[in-house]
């Protein structure tokens, strides 16, 4: 894992522009009479990462839920790999993976069983050994056959992220991925995400933690009152605070 900031994404107008993964055009969303997202435009290409910043209630989680198809786009357009997501929800869900605040794990099942559940609901054709391998990679090998209900928040997070290693999604959506992870976990996650982006994945994450995201090549965006606007490209990491 390198710590040199590789801030600039490949120039956009280059000849070999990677294909577009997400295209959002004029997306509005409201809960009842309450406007949560207003005129969101976003294009994300293969190998790119967009980091969403913003205060609580600014619409970050709503935007991620929309991208994850948990909310339906009723105004505006959302295309994933050129596919209209409103019409082709299942195909879209097949291409994306969402890891939110909640880890969608069943407490009474073991990690292996939880991943079996994930595998069958996603229609993946993988032997159990691959699932154990993924559990190993996220550092949970010792707990692979213990019910998840006794796990700490960090262990749950790791297990949720292990799904990423199985599904190879085109689009990865992470809501506060660094929360609950220890320093080791953060390094490990950033290493995996870097590999994922290099291999042509696309990533949207919401975070409160620019310092941790800084290790990834990314475009920061800011959400305020439901309006999304690009932020200046990340500066080189802030100078270490001078010791008092």
């Amino acid at each position, binding site marked *: 894992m390198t710590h040199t900031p590789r801030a600039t994404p490949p120039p956009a107008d280059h000849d070999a522009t990677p294909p577009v993964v997400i295209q959002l055009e004029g997306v509005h969303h409201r809960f*009842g009479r*309450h406007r949560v997202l207003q005129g969101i435009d976003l294009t994300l290409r293969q190998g790119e990462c967009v980091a969403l910043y913003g205060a609580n209630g600014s619409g970050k989680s709503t935007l991620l839920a929309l991208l994850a198809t948990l909310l339906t786009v*009723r105004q505006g357009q959302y295309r994933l790999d050129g596919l209209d997501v409103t019409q082709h929800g299942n195909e879209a869900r097949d291409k994306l993976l969402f890891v939110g605040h909640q880890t969608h794990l069943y407490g009474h099942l073991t990690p292996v069983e939880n991943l079996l559940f994930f595998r069958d609901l996603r229609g993946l054709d993988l032997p159990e050994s691959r699932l154990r391998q993924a559990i190993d990679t996220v550092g949970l090998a010792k707990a692979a056959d213990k019910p998840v209900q006794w796990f700490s928040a960090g262990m749950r997070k790791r297990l949720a992220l292990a799904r990423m290693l199985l599904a190879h999604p085109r689009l990865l959506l992470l809501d506060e991925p660094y929360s609950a992870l220890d320093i080791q976990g953060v390094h490990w996650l950033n290493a995996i995400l870097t590999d994922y982006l290099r291999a042509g994945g696309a990533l949207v994450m919401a975070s409160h933690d620019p310092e941790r995201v800084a290790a990834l090549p990314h475009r920061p965006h800011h959400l305020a009152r439901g309006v999304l606007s690009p932020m200046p490209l990340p500066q080189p990491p802030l100078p270490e605070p001078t010791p008092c």
Partner: protein
Amino acid sequence: MKILKKIQTLLGVATLVLLAVGLWFVYNAPEDFQQGGAVRILYIHVPSAKMALLSYLFLTVASALYLWKRSETADILAEAATSVGAAFTAITLASGSIWGKPMWGTWWAWDARLTSMLVLLILFKGLMVLRNSMDDPVKGARATAILAIIGAVDLPIIHYSVVWWRTLHQPPSMAASGNAGVHISGPLLPPLLILSGAFMLMGLYMVTVKARQIEARRRLDALESARMHPDE
């Protein structure tokens, strides 16, 4: 919603006029040779039964429209029709019961119509409770709309299962006399028609008032929630 405000008064006046005319006819109508004066209850009973079913039909259409178009107006109309329908169903049951005492000798018989009406009343009540017990009004609206459509499919099955039950299981004594009571003809017909029309107008009037009230309440709720969360 603005149209409703305009037609509300008109509907109210028309309802009153038609009700007055209809009731005058009822007052002057001859007694039934079998049922005597008790037949007059049917002038209330039959139109309100019709309105109970019509309200459910209206509710089903509004619910389908809401699911399809997500129009809030459709949802408001559905909510209004639920309360109005419940009221008419309750009137139907009460008047049927009052009529049944002199005619059948009991307040209640498990005949197909009465049983279906009772189920209908519970269904209306269930729809209201379902809507009110959801914290998220959009979820409440959607769940209620779906339940209304399920009920629309279930009601005929309920009706026919009770009919079969009574005909296969018991000699159709009460069921037959119950049916006979509703066949009205000759001089009894005009007041029934007029009152049916009056009840229909009354139903529309009630839906109008209720819908405007619901709309106002929702606007208030939205204002209140905006006041509570100013920065969202």
